[in-house]
């Protein structure tokens, strides 16, 4: 009887020895980099304002300004106020399609002006900015890009 238990034990350990390396290699090879973009210092803002996103979260209003910075864009956030949602992520939607969304970064309340940089994107009239609460799995706010009068194309 104990011999059968020992055989079962050996089989379990050997199975574990086969399955875990496969899962490990499979998981490491297929992982994707999450594009968390670095925040820049507010005093690095240069260039012209191209337009804004007017995000409305419940009663709060957030005006995010878009600046051209060489080939990149900068999103300038006003003082970030607390919102009644947890773990909010900011997405840039090139044409309103979430499947092509670019993760800009996370929304950190109680911060002074924050600037987030975006490379190789063009603010067309179809672009939208979305706040998504990870904890609630809920879209918190969405706003289209509004070009400033005289803003660069």
């Amino acid at each position, binding site marked *: 009887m104990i*011999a059968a238990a020992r055989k079962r034990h050996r089989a379990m*350990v050997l199975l574990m020895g086969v399955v875990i390396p496969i899962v*490990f290699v499979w998981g490491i090879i297929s992982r994707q980099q999450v594009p968390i973009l670095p925040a820049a210092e507010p005093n690095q803002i240069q260039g012209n304002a191209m337009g804004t996103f007017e995000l409305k979260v419940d009663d709060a209003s957030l005006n995010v300004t878009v600046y051209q910075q060489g080939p990149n864009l900068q999103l300038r956030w006003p003082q970030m106020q607390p919102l009644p949602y947890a773990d909010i992520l900011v997405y840039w939607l090139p044409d309103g399609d979430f499947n092509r969304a670019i993760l800009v970064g996370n929304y950190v309340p109680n911060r002074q002006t924050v600037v987030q940089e975006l490379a190789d994107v063009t603010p067309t009239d179809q672009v939208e900015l979305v706040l998504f609460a990870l904890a609630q799995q809920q879209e918190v706010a969405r706003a289209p890009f509004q070009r400033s009068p005289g803003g660069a194309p």
Partner: protein
Amino acid sequence: MSVAYQAVMWNRQKRRYDLTILAGVLGYLAIFIAFFSLTNPNATAETALIRGLGTAAFFLLHIILCIGPLARIDKRFLPLLYNRRHLGVTMFMLGLGHGALSILQFHGFGDLNPLVSVFVSNDSYDSTSQFPFHSLGFVALAILFLMAATSHDFWLANLSAPVWKKLHMGVYIAYTLLVAHVILGALQAETSIILSGLTLLGFLVVFGLHFYSGFLERRGDDELGNQVMADYVEVCSVNDIKNDRARIFTLSGERVAVFKYDGKISAISNVCQHQNGPLGEGKVVDGCITCPWHGYQYRPNDGASPPPFSEKVPTFAVKLKGDRIFVNPTPHPPGTDLPPAVIEQAKEGNV
């Protein structure tokens, strides 16, 4: 041994063991949370606690899985095995804290039942990088719960040792699920080679120790091709066994422990009735064979525990021819009293 059940039969060693576990867990959590807060200043306290509890449980599971093979390889690790169940319950509690906080944070604020949400809120079961890894952790936690809930001797006695052992072998399934939970979860976002390397190292240590101890055991399991005398199999010389100790032989597929004590030789099953510990690796204390794992005792001649205890193991008939020991591989029913073979002084040598 036990004739009645108590929640925990405390003794000095168990108190020291548990205090060491408590201090280790609290120290780890304090260091982890402090380090995590310094390196992730934007992270919330809940996130720090979730990760601290999760890594503590995962690390402790590695230690638990290493204790068994380490104790087989080197007897100095036996004290760790003595109270391993307390480590297991502690690990489950840490995992439960990690799971409960995670479910609350990630699934507790939606319309769905949080436990349903674990399995259906993310249905990318065909994706690797977005696999719903929470479900893997939940299933592993359910297995660990069954093990923790049945860890007491009450369940061991009522389920019987073979069933209990089968149930507790689920730890390997739980470990495999948890490694997958970590790889498809935390390691998808945390791309540091240190974290991947530590996960891989942990698995290699656990598997390597099991493989090595299994190799040593299998070598000892080779059947004896020795002389047979009227159904008795020659196993070794009297001088090959130290006083109050045993040697283990595999006869008819099962292990038999042949003990030398008080100038006599007796053979009993190597399998302790408590948790199937290796009796042949124990020693004779106060006239009783004492299991090295948890101290259960059996008389060498009849394989029965001394009163008031009731555990019994099978016994085997033994004969001596000169200084050679012969054992009949047919087991007698547990508790059968068989006369030991008496060693004549002249034959014993200087052991």
